[in-house]
């Protein structure tokens, strides 16, 4: 099992923060997300959070909670949350949760960056 795939990694470009999500987005793997994104936002002005699901093949409602939490955070500064790299399984869950009403989906990181 790759440790790389289990960690959350981040990228900042302009005022966008890309969050590279792990293979399995559950409570355990998303516990540090809030703290780590806050740390980055303490140092840089961020008005867009882009979630990269391209390595993610499992997700439960904890993942929805993480998206919602970051959405509220971004809303407070007039920013937004978007996603890309979503596979069929993840798409089904995101659909079920209704989160597509507030979070837009793109095919690639480049498209997500452009908004």
């Amino acid at each position: 099992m790759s440790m790389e795939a289990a960690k959350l990694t981040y990228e900042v470009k302009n005022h966008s923060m890309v969050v590279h999500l792990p293979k399995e987005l559950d409570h355990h793997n998303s516990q540090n997300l809030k703290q780590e994104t806050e740390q980055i936002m303490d140092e840089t002005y961020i008005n867009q959070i882009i979630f990269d699901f391209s390595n993610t093949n499992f997700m439960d409602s904890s993942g929805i909670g993480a998206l919602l939490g970051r959405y509220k955070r971004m809303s407070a500064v007039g920013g937004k949350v978007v996603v890309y790299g979503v596979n069929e399984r993840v798409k089904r869950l995101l659909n079920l949760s209704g989160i597509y009403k507030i979070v837009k989906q793109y095919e690639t990181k480049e498209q997500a960056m452009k908004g």
Partner: protein
Amino acid sequence: MDKELEKTMKAEYMKLEIESKSHNEEFARVVVAVFMTRLDPTIEEMEDVKTAVSEAVTNAVIHGYQGKEGTIEIEASICEKTLTLSIRDQGIGIPDIKKAMEPLYTSMPGGERSGMGFSFMEAFMDQVEVISKIGEGTTILLKKTIGNDSLE
């Protein structure tokens, strides 16, 4: 396959006891997934069950034991094509089960919880039952009948 051999090969019951720790959420999913392969499920059916197990175990870790130490007991049984799961904790219990199961309700509004755990369990399993007693613990029962494409 020989009918007698087929019968004995179908695992009927298993019980797993795990510590209430978040890294065991994945472990529980994998164990139940492997157990249910005897039913020859589709990938989607397995993913559905894994998600439901993940929700139930996470509830025990976060709510039942409030992140503290405890034991979570997972039982699984197969009867013909039906998988029955029981996820039990001896934690604080649920004061109002009906309210807890309302979509989007969360007892932790400040945290990063979606309140969709039970909704997902209900979406992915055929039956969800919750038994709970304050100060004694909670049991979540999940049932799903697995269809398959193989010829009988």
